[in-house]
């Protein structure tokens, strides 16, 4: 049994939050540049230029890329051969608390959904733990902005709706969102499982690198088709017209019941802050 101090998890979460708020991951920068080069509508190209310029300024001067430094999504894959010394949930929150204070990041969390008092330290994180074989702890973090989160949707489709039903639902979600989620967006799609599982799959999809396609060729093709269709809507960067409405579509699936076809669409903005570290 490997021993791991909870303090090491705190330190990793702190480091990843600080790094993620001010500098976008390479995969996002590359996809943005590719999209800018492929965009032939001048006002749209100009917006993509500004976005890329912004990301450079943020990284160079350590200013957050976006003022919505998000609610922290923490997805931990904990090896069964690891024993964590200390309180895991408290350790993750401690990392968030330290990062948001040290990095002058915005505290955007209210500690009660209706009474709405700011928690003051951006805690708690949205923590998911998964038990996996091995003796490592993989920490995936996302600083999730809510302009895009608010435009996400879930629908319990009928099995007879099939693949086309999924395509229509994803497209409708993106069209209804229009300019609100700060396009170009990243689209996470969860298909199958149950009501809650589908939503979780959609969130998990957003933790993937943008250039990492679904390993199943059937779903890889679905991802590509959805991206093609979304980029034909004309919504464009910031919803002001153009080709580049989405940077990537990522699908995650799970077996489901004979009576159901749950489908969740979780949207992310172009400030797709997803980070990973293995301890």
């Amino acid at each position: 049994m490997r021993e791991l101090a909870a303090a090491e998890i705190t330190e990793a979460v702190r480091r990843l939050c600080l790094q993620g708020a001010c500098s976008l991951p390479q995969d996002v920068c590359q996809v943005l540049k590719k999209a800018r080069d492929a965009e032939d509508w001048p006002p749209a190209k100009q917006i993509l230029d500004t976005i890329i310029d912004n990301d450079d300024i943020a990284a160079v001067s350590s200013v957050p890329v976006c003022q919505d430094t998000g609610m922290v999504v923490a997805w931990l894959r904990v090896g069964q051969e690891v024993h964590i010394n200390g309180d895991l949930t408290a350790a993750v929150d401690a990392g968030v608390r330290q990062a948001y204070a040290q990095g002058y990041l915005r505290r955007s969390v209210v500690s009660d959904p209706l009474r709405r008092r700011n928690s003051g330290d951006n805690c708690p994180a949205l923590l998911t733990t998964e038990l996996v074989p091995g003796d490592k702890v993989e920490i995936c973090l996302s600083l999730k902005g809510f302009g895009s989160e608010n435009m996400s949707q879930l629908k319990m489709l009928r099995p007879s709706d099939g693949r086309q039903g999924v395509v229509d639902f994803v497209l409708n979600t993106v069209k209804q969102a229009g300019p609100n989620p700060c396009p170009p967006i990243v689209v996470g799609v969860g298909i199958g499982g149950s009501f809650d599982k589908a939503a979780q799959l959609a969130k998990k999809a957003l933790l993937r690198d943008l250039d990492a396609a679904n390993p199943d060729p059937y779903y890889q093709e679905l991802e590509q088709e959805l991206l093609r269709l979304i980029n034909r809507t004309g919504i464009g960067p910031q919803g002001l017209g153009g080709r580049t409405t989405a940077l990537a579509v990522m699908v995650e699936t799970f077996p489901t019941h004979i009576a159901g076809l749950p489908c969740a669409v979780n949207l992310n903005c172009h400030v797709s802050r997803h980070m990973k570290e293995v301890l």
Partner: protein
Amino acid sequence: MKQPSPPEAAKPRRLNWPLSATELAGLRAGEAVLISGTAYTARDAAHKRLVAALEKGQELPFPIADSLIYYVGPTPAKPGQIIGSAGPTTSYRMDAYTPRLLAAGQRGMIGKGRRSPAVIEAIRQYGAVYFAAIGGAGAKLAQSIAAAEAICYEDLGTESVKRLQLRDFPAIVVIDSQGHDWYDLGPAAYLNRQKTLNAKE
């Protein structure tokens, strides 16, 4: 409604806020602008208080006549900084309050995202304007803010009302005083051009 042409290589127009009624009426949806002058920040919680104050007949914490409100909750400024990252938040959450503030004299808004039919109608009625700034470009937009000072509701933290001095702050006219909405017209202009290109092939 006549569709304005796409503002392809047009140079952004410089605006010094506050604008006269004639200047406001001259703005067209789709135009790129650089705004200089005073703006006040307010998001959800501050809007709620501002409208509550109006309903009670109380004085507002800043002069609402001809004002420009920027929907932003910036990150805290580091020592030596004027303001932290400061891009727009999604505007529809302010829709419930906006017609009341326009009726009280507000004339401009900077945000991002769609507005309700009631807000568009109020913009038309009062000859106001709705600008969009680029969402997710808060590091760059902060460079166009020359001064920032919290003036009230400081208990709201990031949501306090701040007086900003904008200097060539880049934005796009999305809803003009005639009610044109570039969130409809911009994508339509792009799709139209695509159709023409496809027909030529």
